[in-house]
Structures are given as structure tokens and as C-alpha cells.
């Protein structure tokens, strides 16, 4: 049997040239990084990026159609170069996927050539630019002459081109502001991480109330020597409720009473209170060996010390439940004074005046007593372009699935 052996870098097919080009681009990018003392790539904002988008489209179509027979253009839109650039993108992404992408991380050559911010560095940008040309020419090659059988290819490639181009060029117009909000106060400014400064927003936000709903408090046995919580026999996170039985080896615990919110007055038993001023309490009975003890345990809160039961060398503690839901009741006020009331919640952003406002965080140390709520305001004018690309990819993807199944059923 004659094996059909083709070399990866067979001359005349363009692999060698493709690989060389990718290497040169990465090296050139690093040289630019070094020469510009690590400033990275600054994508120009609107309208220059819009013009660049248009120029790219024109180049792709004009050159792709008129010079399609030209050897260089054919190679530029070919798979050998595409594969070389995919490898280069993957290689750079691997660096970015291993090293922490933080300007504070690393020093010397590593940060000088931008390995701690790979995706905003010149090598990545240069590879992306040629990749977009490659993708564009590849697309045009299949577009003319038009064939129905090429639709899947065209949707996928055009979608990828539009999404990547939109995302890269649009990144200059993307604004993300962290907006600190305090209960009972109005805020007009947000912190821009890119500019590293507070900037004025075209509207203001008034925080009426910030609230956290928590899961039930958790019972834990803490080992101060190992500095960790010990797994119980049922290997479950124990949400406290009356009647809960649990054991750690020969230590047996029963929850007698559970109080969702309470306060301590003097040295007596806790008394129920409202959610705002209280902490959870649990009355537990612990048996170990011949010994038995009963008592109230609770986590720390404002004005309330934490209480635990000492069980041999361990501590039986009650921990505040993790957040189930946190939300901010806010009022947006635009420049003309129009007011809009909204609730901000994780996964449920609110749209106002062309911005999307998110519930981002709060003062985690203060927990449910936090009077600070951090919102995030995002304005991304290029989002429709990127999403258009995503939808094209999905359409192509559906066809790919259908094609694959059809092809396979023939076998």
C-alpha cells in the first residue's frame, strides 16, 4: 500500500512562508514593544476606528476580487497562512493563559515585551491584522463566484471576521466605569480603570437601598491547629435548621433551635430582631465521649461578639450563609432631571441612556450591613457589530451541524 505522505512544510504550498511570516510578525511586535518602552497598542477611537473598519472592508473586497488570481493574494487568503496565524494566535494565547495578565506581574524583559498583557500587545495586534486579511480574502474567494454550497463557509468566516474586527476596533470606544454608590447619596462619577481616574457620567445615580439575601447559616467544626474546617460524616455543607443532626467522628451535634436574626442583651439568651440589626443564632447540643454541653453559637456582627462552643481541641462555630442575591434600589437622574427608578441585580443589568448598568459588588467585609454598593456602567457602541458577527457564526454553526449529520448519514 502506498502511503500518501505530505510534509507539513512542503515548499510551494506556502506553509514555510506562512510560518516565517507569523514568526516575523511576532518578533516585529516584540521589537515595537521594546522600542516604545512597553506602551502597548492604543486603538484609535471613533471616528478613526470606523474609517479603519471601512478601509479594511474595502481592501478585502477590492483586492480579494480584483487581484484574486495574483499568487500573493491567493497565498494571503489561503489555508497555509491561516494555519500559521492560528498557531501564532494560539501560541500567544498560551502565554497569556499561563502568565497572570496583570501589568503589576513580572519585570524585566517579560514586561518589556508585554508578556504580562499579551492581548493588548503589538505581536498579538500584528498577528490579528494579518489574520483578518487572511480571513477576509478567504471569504471573498468563496463569495465569488457565488455557490449555495459555500453558504456555511461564508457565514462562519464572515461572522468571525465581523466579530473580531468589531471587538478589536470597538475596544477603543468601550467605556467601563465602576460606580461606587452609598445609601442615601447621589453619585455622578465613575472610576475608569483604563484612564485610572474618576470621570463624570452623563447621568447621576441615587442609591435608595442595598440589600443582601443570604443562604441559611452554616454549622462548622474548626480545627485551629490545621487552620481549617473539618469535613463532617455526611460530607455536606450544613445549613442550620432545628432538628439537624450531624457528627464529626464521635462528636455528635444536634441543633435545638435556630434564630435567623437576633441580638444578645446582657448575658442571657438571644432575642429575635429584624434582619438589619441581628445575626443568626443556633442553640446546639454537643455530645462527645461521656461529655455533653448545650449553648448558643453565633457569628460576629456589628455590636455582637461571635460565640462558639469549645469541643475538645476544636471550635463549633456558626457561619453566616453565603449571599443568595444582592440588589440595589436606585434612581437614575438624567441631565434634564428625568428620574427613572430601577433595581440592579447580578445577571439583570438595567439600560439607561445608552448605558448598561450592572450590580457589580459591595463591601464584602461589612456583608449585609454594607452601605456601599458598587455598580458598573458599560457603554459599548460596537456591541451590535460584534453580536451581528456572533449571530452569523451561529447560523454557520447550525449549518455545519446539519451538514455534518447529513454527510455522516450517507456513510
Amino acid at each position, binding site marked *: 500500500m502506498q502511503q500518501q505522505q505530505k510534509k507539513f512544510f512542503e515548499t510551494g504550498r506556502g506553509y514555510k512562508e506562512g510560518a516565517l511570516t507569523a514568526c516575523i510578525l511576532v518578533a516585529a511586535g516584540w521589537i515595537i514593544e521594546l522600542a516604545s518602552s512597553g506602551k502597548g497598542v492604543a486603538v484609535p477611537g471613533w471616528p478613526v476606528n470606523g474609517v479603519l473598519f471601512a478601509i479594511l472592508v474595502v481592501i478585502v473586497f477590492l483586492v480579494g476580487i480584483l487581484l484574486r488570481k495574483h499568487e500573493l493574494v491567493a497565498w494571503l487568503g489561503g489555508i497555509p497562512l491561516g494555519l500559521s496565524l492560528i498557531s501564532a494566535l494560539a501560541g500567544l494565547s498560551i502565554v497569556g*493563559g499561563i502568565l497572570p495578565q496583570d501589568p503589576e506581574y513580572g519585570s524585566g524583559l517579560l514586561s518589556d515585551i508585554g508578556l504580562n498583557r499579551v492581548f493588548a500587545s503589538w505581536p498579538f495586534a500584528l498577528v490579528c491584522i494579518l489574520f483578518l486579511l487572511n480571513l477576509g480574502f478567504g471569504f471573498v474567494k468563496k463569495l465569488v463566484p457565488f455557490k449555495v454550497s459555500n453558504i456555511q463557509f461564508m457565514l462562519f468566516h464572515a461572522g468571525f471576521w465581523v466579530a473580531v474586527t468589531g471587538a478589536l476596533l470597538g475596544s477603543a470606544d468601550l467605556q467601563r466605569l465602576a460606580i461606587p454608590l452609598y445609601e442615601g447619596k447621589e453619585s455622578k462619577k465613575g472610576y475608569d480603570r483604563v484612564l485610572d481616574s474618576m470621570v463624570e457620567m452623563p447621568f447621576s445615580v441615587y442609591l435608595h437601598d442595598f440589600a443582601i439575601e443570604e443562604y441559611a447559616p452554616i454549622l462548622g467544626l474548626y480545627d485551629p491547629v490545621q487552620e481549617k474546617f473539618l469535613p463532617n460524616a455526611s460530607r455536606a455543607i450544613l445549613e442550620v435548621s432545628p432538628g439537624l443532626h450531624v457528627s464529626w467522628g464521635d462528636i455528635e451535634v444536634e441543633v435545638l433551635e435556630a434564630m435567623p436574626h437576633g441580638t444578645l442583651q446582657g448575658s442571657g439568651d438571644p432575642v429575635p430582631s429584624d434582619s438589619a440589626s441581628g445575626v443568626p443564632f443556633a442553640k446546639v447540643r454537643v455530645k462527645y465521649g461521656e461529655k455533653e454541653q448545650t449553648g448558643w453559637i453565633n457569628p460576629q456582627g456589628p455590636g455582637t461578639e461571635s460565640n462558639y462552643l469549645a469541643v475538645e481541641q476544636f471550635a463549633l462555630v456558626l457561619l453566616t450563609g453565603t*449571599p443568595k442575591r444582592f440588589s440595589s434600589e436606585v434612581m437614575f437622574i438624567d441631565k434634564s432631571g428625568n428620574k427613572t427608578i430601577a433595581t440592579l441585580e447580578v445577571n439583570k443589568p438595567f439600560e439607561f441612556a445608552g448605558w448598561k448598568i450592572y450590580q457589580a459588588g459591595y463591601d464584602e467585609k461589612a456583608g449585609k450591613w454594607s452601605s456601599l454598593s458598587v455598580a458598573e456602567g458599560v457603554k459599548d457602541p460596537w456591541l451590535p457589530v460584534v453580536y451581528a458577527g*456572533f449571530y452569523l457564526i451561529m447560523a454557520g454553526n447550525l449549518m455545519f451541524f446539519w451538514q455534518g449529520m447529513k454527510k455522516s448519514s450517507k456513510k
Partner: protein
Amino acid sequence: MTWNEFPIVASVAFACWGGGSVLNLFSAKKQALKVPSHLLMGFGCAVMVAFLVLFWQAIERPPLRTLGETRLWYATMIPLVGFLVEYRWKITWLKFYCMALAAFFLCINLFYPDILDKTLMPALQSVWFVPHVIVYMIGYVFLAAASAAAWHNIYLDYRSQSSERNEAVGHYLAVLGFVFLTFGLLFGAFWAKEAWGHYWTWDPKETWAFIAWLSYLGYLHLHTEKVGKRKLQWYLGLTFFVLLISWFGVNYLPSAQNSVHSYQVS
């Protein structure tokens, strides 16, 4: 039904897959064993499906948050791909690899048991949670099967027994896997926009998902270019390791300290 009952469930699944496989091997000589063998192997998956349903009910949230939970899905679905391949392309060997992989994933859960935790942090409470994760799981399952097929093809090639039909199956599985990987990536982007404010932030998990996607994109183009068969099978077999990094290896990398994709109980 929770992790407490899992060892029993896993044992039943092992017994079904193991017993079914033995019967299936003997069925080459004794046709009458064929149907019982398939029923037994299928029952192994049915047990896993039932466990997933009851587990979902017991923890009152989709069991898709921890790696241990996702391994349950993986172990349930991958033998089904093996059965699908047998049903559609009459290739019988793949299902054994698939059941072995499923058993391997259940073993990891047995040796490193999860702590049962019903909570679901606010970021995960989204309509995108189930579609994003399940689509990815299906993608991983297809690509694991594609990788198993590739390794088997390498072995067959080594013994000069390679066949176009076997190679075609590996390719179809890779195509199907890529389709689901792409949907997973895009669903993740849509979700990230709703939850974190931006569709793409080069979070380590995103970066590795992108690298894995690029790797399979590379495979598809190499296939189009009709690269040597042997090299292609090696590529397909090895690419799965990139996917494994994206799946859980990323948690062990220096970059992971900044990841927002960490939902594991500490």
C-alpha cells in the same frame, strides 16, 4: 439522592457497563447475547440519568457547578456517544473506550468526593447557566470520543489495519464537538455580557477555551488541506489535552489566581 448514595450508583453503573461489555464481546460468537448486552450497557447510563435527576431535585439547583458535578454528566453522556456511533456508523469498538472513560471519571469522583453544597452564587443564577454548561459538556463528550477514535486509529495504523471508515468517524465526532464548542463559547460570551458587563475579558478560563477552540479550528483546516492521515490522527488525539487544560487544568496555572471562573468549594 446525593453524594452519600453515589458509591452505590457508581458501582451499579460499573457492573452494567462491565457486564454488558463482556456479553457484547461474547456476542460475536453467540448472537443471542447481543440484545441483552446492549440492554445492560444502556441500563448503566439509565442509572446515571436517574441519579442526575434525583441529585438535581435534592440539591435544588442544576448540578453543574463543581467539577465533580460536571464529571457526572460527562460519565452519563460519553457512553451514549459510543452507542450513537455504533447505531449510526456500525462501529462497535468506540463504545468500549467511551465506557472506560466514563468509569474513569466516576472513579475520580469516588476517590475525591465532593462536599455537598446546595448554594448557587448570584453570578450563576442565570438562564444561560444550563445551556452554556450543557452545550460545553456535549462538546467535550464528542471531542473525547473523537480523541479516543484517533488513538484507536493510530493503533490500527501501527498494525497496518487503518480504514477510511474509522478515520471518518473520528472526523465526524470532531466536527460535532467543534460545533458544540463554538456554541458554548458564544453562549458564554452572551452570558458574560449580562453578568460581568463584557462579552470577553481574557479571563484565564476564556483564554484556554479560546486556545482549545483554535486547536480544533486548526484540525478542521488541516483536514481540509488533506494533511497526512497519520499526522491528522495524532493531532486529533493530542488536541484533547489542550481541551483538558481548558476544562480543569487551568485551575492549576499561575494565571488562575485572577480567574472569575472559580466556583469550586474550597
